């Protein structure tokens, strides 16, 4: 069902790609890698030296109870916040040392984001919401909207191109958000509780589409969740407790055993 995506091979124009500093590719085949990440908010230690590596096409769930530091980990990996110490590498280039502008451009072009809800601009119809990141990257409007629309069929959104976010169901809105996250052909898609506002069946469908579409586009996926049902869709689960990662365990296998 995701064939249509492969018929529109549209990498973002090189002009909007941020220049990544050339660094030796130290660690195997990792697309995204965090090394010894530490982050504190005042006296509260959110991350106490976390190492994590995500390989090509891999889907990783970051799980943990509230306050465990899983959101902070996602923010550090995605270049939203800077770690106090440690390094973040994307495709072998260090990104945590980039300035705010550089990280912002990086997030826009190399990363995709799916949040719980409220990320779509209410004034824009669905297709323009999806086209927005492309337009921000200087793609012409006609091409951006055309490219955006090519995602609607494969994601089961055909016919909803002109709907406004207020006229979409929660599941439909999340699929539009998935389209927007993938439209720039990012290297990594970050999802922060992507099904948190959905019922179980819709959440299930949304996760399946998110994982399939991400893999189909050769991107890796980082999902922050506290829902084992969501984590089960991923290849691996990284359990965060008190700012540190417990040993990796496979996600699908464990759930299948139950």
């Amino acid at each position, binding site marked *: 069902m995701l064939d249509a995506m492969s018929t529109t091979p549209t990498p973002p124009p090189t002009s909007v790609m941020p220049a990544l500093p050339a660094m030796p590719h130290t660690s195997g085949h990792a697309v995204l890698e965090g090394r010894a990440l530490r982050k504190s908010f005042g006296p509260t230690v959110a991350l106490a030296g976390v190492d994590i590596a995500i390989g090509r096409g891999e889907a990783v769930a970051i799980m943990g109870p509230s306050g465990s530091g899983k959101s902070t980990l996602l923010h550090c990996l995605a270049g939203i916040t800077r770690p106090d110490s440690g390094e973040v590498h994307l495709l072998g280039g260090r990104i945590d040392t980039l300035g705010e502008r550089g990280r912002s451009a990086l997030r826009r072009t190399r990363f995709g984001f799916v*949040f719980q809800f409220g990320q779509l601009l209410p004034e824009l119809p669905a297709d323009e919401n999806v086209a927005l990141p492309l337009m921000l990257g200087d793609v012409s409007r006609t091409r951006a909207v055309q490219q955006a629309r090519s995602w609607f069929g494969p994601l089961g959104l055909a016919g909803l191109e002109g709907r406004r976010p207020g006229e979409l169901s929660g599941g439909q809105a999340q699929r539009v958000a998935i389209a927007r996250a993938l439209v720039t052909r990012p290297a990594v898609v970050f999802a922060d509780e992507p099904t948190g506002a959905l019922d179980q069946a819709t959440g299930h469908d949304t996760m399946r589409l998110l994982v399939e579409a991400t893999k189909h586009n050769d991107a890796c996926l980082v999902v922050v969740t506290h829902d084992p049902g969501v984590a089960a869709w991923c290849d691996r689960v990284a359990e965060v407790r008190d700012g540190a990662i417990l040993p990796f365990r496979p996600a699908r296998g464990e759930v299948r055993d139950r």
Partner: protein
Amino acid sequence: MTRLLDLTWRLIRGGGSRGLLGSSLTVVAVAVSTALLLFAVAVNVAFAGRAERAAWRNPVTATGTPRALEAVRVEFAGDRVITVVHVAVLGLGVRPPRGVSPLPGPGEFVLSPALARDPSAARRFPGKVVGTVGDDALVHPGELVAVAGHAPGDAVMTATWRGDHRLGVSATKVSGFAGAQDNMAVGYRVLAALAGVLMIVPLLVFGGAAARLTVARRDQRLAALRLAGATPGQVVAMTVAEAVMTALAGAVLGLVLYAAAAPSLQRIEITGGTWFASDLWPGILPVAAVLAGVPLLVGLSGIAGLRRVVVSPLGVARRATPPAMRFVRVVVLMGALALVPALGAGARPTTILVVLTLAFLALNFAGAWVVGLIGRISAAGARTPARLLAGRRLADDPKSAWRTVSGVALTGFVAGFTGILTPSAEAGSDRMTALLLHDVRVGTLVVLAVSFLIAIVSAGVTAASSVLDRRQTYALLRLAGTPLEVLDRARRMETLVPLTIMGGGSILTGVLCAAPFASLSPSRDGVLTLLCCVVLGFGGVVAAGALTRPLLRAVATDPAPRPD
């Protein structure tokens, strides 16, 4: 009830800095509205006062036994106007006009203080000065007025005035000096009322909008209260209590603002002079009415905005495609405008006012439709994300943008028209026409300035509330790498595009329409003043939007947009 009020108060205080910001925005908006409302009322009271004080110079022919003769001549000393009232007593028991004491006998004069202070002008009245013309008989503080006493047989008392009726009145047999308000004064009062309508209509709409915005931001909290078991009545009571408390604070602040601005307003010159301090005090009753009415109106529009939440506990607004604004509005406008000339010249001033008010309301309806059209057109042709966003937002909520620009659009034409005309003429009746033109120009510029002020405050409030309403989306967009400048630019365009097209367009149309009349000698001062007003106005609107940029930054850099 007390417990409910107590809870409301605690919710206001516990709203955090963001809630406080929202409340202060409403306070500022209501304060400015109140101050301008007081100004609009005061303008009418002031012109009524002037008409009242000048009535004694417009003699009314006696129906019973005449007791005195009264004639009026207007003279010019350089570029200053001197009003000379000639009086001759016929019988006993004639009381001097209010403010004039005593009534001068033949050969005697009573001079206004400004005239008495000016030796060159006072030289025209060689005789015994027996008193002064007090404030009660003066149109404005610096007015030059002389009351000349005569014998009934003196030349001026028997001559018939054949010149311009604005420059003289033939001797008239009167039974007293009460007089009547002349046509000129009544005309000014009508114009003042019109200016009042022009200022009040956008103010009311804007004030109501400010109230609804506060309520809209409370949607979520109120829905939570409903879920927690509050009855619809309690929710309404709490919200209205909050809106009214905020509005009352704003209204009082507005009164202070107005009092602070009054000394400068007093210096605006109309009909050749400035104003008495008492002219700009609308009076206890009107002030009390405004102070009570504004919070009441805000409360009422709060209730209107609340209906949605009260209906359903889950009633947090979801935005859908708004129903397209109907072309009917434009038809209504055409109809209303067609009525204006159909009235003819014979209509009473009040009728004209009512119809003009209706026409403005119709323009108001059509204005939002036009803004929506501008939004759709600019969205359709948009190439940048900022322009697309601005266009879509205009099409989405054209009323909010129209509120911001409506005053400028409505006043702009007249301001543009009168702005470039030259009110300089040599003497006599041309001079009076020039004076009238000058007054209309000053008047429209004042209304235009007020309209720009409304636009500035409204732009600020709209920008701030739009940021607050969309704070989660903005924060998430920033996380996803959207540069804040794009959002900023979109917000700026959202106001500037309709302001330029409708406000600027209306001013330009006025200028173009007046151009044939002014082609020989456009008024340099007038053009400069108009230009300053427009530049300051546009600059103010941009600045008001820019002031909310830190707010955008603050909400968008919130590191945890998700309550984790």
